[in-house]
């Protein structure tokens, strides 16, 4: 069994006892969950650096609110919620500042996330990922929740703040759109 001890460190922090506790607790949670959160954000945003920023901000938010949490045992759930919210906001900002088009998305698929990533991801799946990036945010979120996080329709509905029926229709439309883009060679 591979084990990983927590070892929080937060240099530069103006410390009181309670703030220090919060800093260590949040840092320990970050060490435990940051990679998985960045993965979710990367799927939502398609951009590693923005994904890392969103996750960073989510954990900072957790830190700011640590002492107001009713149940710190659910801090991880709060962070996941914050990451999803952060991704939605990031998508809105990005869409407002420079609306991406299909051509840009098609170019993106030729930019794998890393050399290692290029070796890991087949061309067919890179086309799917490129298509995923140009789906509307809610459709992409539905697919991430349903097929990556393997949430049920009910759980996805709660995560997205919509009804179960909306999850079904959104997922269905997303798959149809993805299939259409693949069929038409747009991704």
């Amino acid at each position, binding site marked *: 069994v591979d084990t990983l001890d927590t070892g929080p460190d937060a240099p530069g922090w103006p410390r009181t006892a309670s703030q220090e506790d919060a800093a260590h607790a949040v840092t320990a949670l970050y060490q435990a969950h940051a990679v998985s959160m960045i993965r979710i954000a990367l799927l939502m945003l398609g951009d590693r650096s923005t994904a890392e920023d969103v996750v960073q901000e989510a954990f900072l938010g957790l830190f700011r609110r640590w002492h107001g949490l009713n149940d710190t045992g659910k801090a991880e759930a709060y962070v996941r919620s914050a990451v999803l919210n952060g991704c939605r906001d990031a998508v809105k900002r990005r869409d407002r500042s420079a609306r991406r088009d299909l051509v840009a998305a098609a170019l993106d698929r030729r930019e*794998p996330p890393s050399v290692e990533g290029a070796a890991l991801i087949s061309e067919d799946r890179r086309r799917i990922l490129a298509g995923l990036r140009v789906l509307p945010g809610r459709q992409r979120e539905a697919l991430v929740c349903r097929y990556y996080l393997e949430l049920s329709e009910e759980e996805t509905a709660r995560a997205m703040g919509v009804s179960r029926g909306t999850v079904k229709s959104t997922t269905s439309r997303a798959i149809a759109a993805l299939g259409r883009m693949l069929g038409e060679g747009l991704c």
Partner: protein
Amino acid sequence: VLNENDNLNWLPAETAAAMRDLARTVTEAPPLRLTADATGLAPARPRGPRFRWSWGAPLLAAVAVVALAVALGIVRNLPSAQLTPSATLTTPTPAPGTTAPVTTAGGLPEYYVALHPASGSHGAPNGLVVGDTVTGKTVAVVAPPAHSTFVSVSGAADDRTFAVAAAPTAGGPALDIGFYLLTITPGGSPAARLTQLPMEPLPGVIATALSASGKELAVATANSAVTGGPATRELAVYSVATGRPLRSWSTGNTSAIVSDAMPGVQFGAYADQYPALSWTDADRVVEFPVFARTGGTGPGYLVEVRGMSVTAADGDLIVESKILASFTGLDAPPCGTFFPMLSGNGTTLFCLVSSGQEGHTNPTTVRWQLMWQPRATTLANAEKFRSLPYIKVIGVPTGSAVYPATAWVSSAGSTVLIEWSVVAPGAAGGHRTSIRFGELTLKEDGWKFTPLPAPAIFAGGGLPGIAW
């Protein structure tokens, strides 16, 4: 190239695979920047847009929090070497310095007493083993009385006196539990002496706890399973010296002490015991949990930790007791475990939340997070309370079960013995393939874990029981 008539049934699975491929490209995270500027608590300056925070129902609860209640013996220590000598329960003021807790240089109690199959084989009647906490060496072995098997153990603060409950091996419709006192004298001859307490055996016993002074024994019963009468829970305090009951309280609320709402609860037939009682506040209070499923539109779970003053008049267990801590949860039992462990001074509860939701780190390994979370009770000074958790992340083979436990908490809540073990898929008889046990100590910069030899009680299934 697809056309409109193509069936897209394959696409969800392939999309999931593509997303997993992309996710796997992330293998590390940059350091968290918790500086004064980044946290926004420094003097105000322009910041980037802040993200909206959702305080709705917990999201993405794809994997249930696993609440694990390992039936460990209930033990505690005493604050500032204060013990009560009260045998009549009429003088709750503790007398100072009558007995000092015996501990190692590091603050741990030196010896533990654990149930152990008398013949060394699984399924044999349980005897007792006395072990050295730090070295793991066996100090003494005690056989069970004839036709009996030990089912639970709890310790006094002197680390030399333990109460042991025993059930008949023959079973039957009404298992009468008998009580014994084990006194250990390391280096003496014998090193451990077992004497029967002058108490009548009791049916329906579900939990016991010896007071820190070793002078009182708290016993909880659920008699309905045995007698077939109305469902009740009863808490009684007995004099160890005379065996006489000193106080008793009862309730028809079957959420109290060991709740009917807990999964897998079976009273009576198997003499199952639970770590549901402890003494606190210098032997003035007996603590017990209330666990309920609430349903409806409110929170789904309620856990209260209640304290019963031993000076309270006989009567209703719920009415006479006071809430020390209360938690609600929507999707999973709050505070993780059904039986959070309380520090001897009554200020700190240790919640234990275990979850395997981290998913696969590779096709054969799943990440689990184990978190021991101190929570303040109503007896704590909230302003000074340190809620810093200890978090352990482990990778285990896919399909494994992980069992964490809080085994012992010091008086002040700053030293804790913890354990976690893994049952790998296919392990014969649920045998735990990996056991970690050790001491948590609270330092200025957080909790420090020091491994210790794991007592054998943690290795297998069956009915656990260990006390310090």
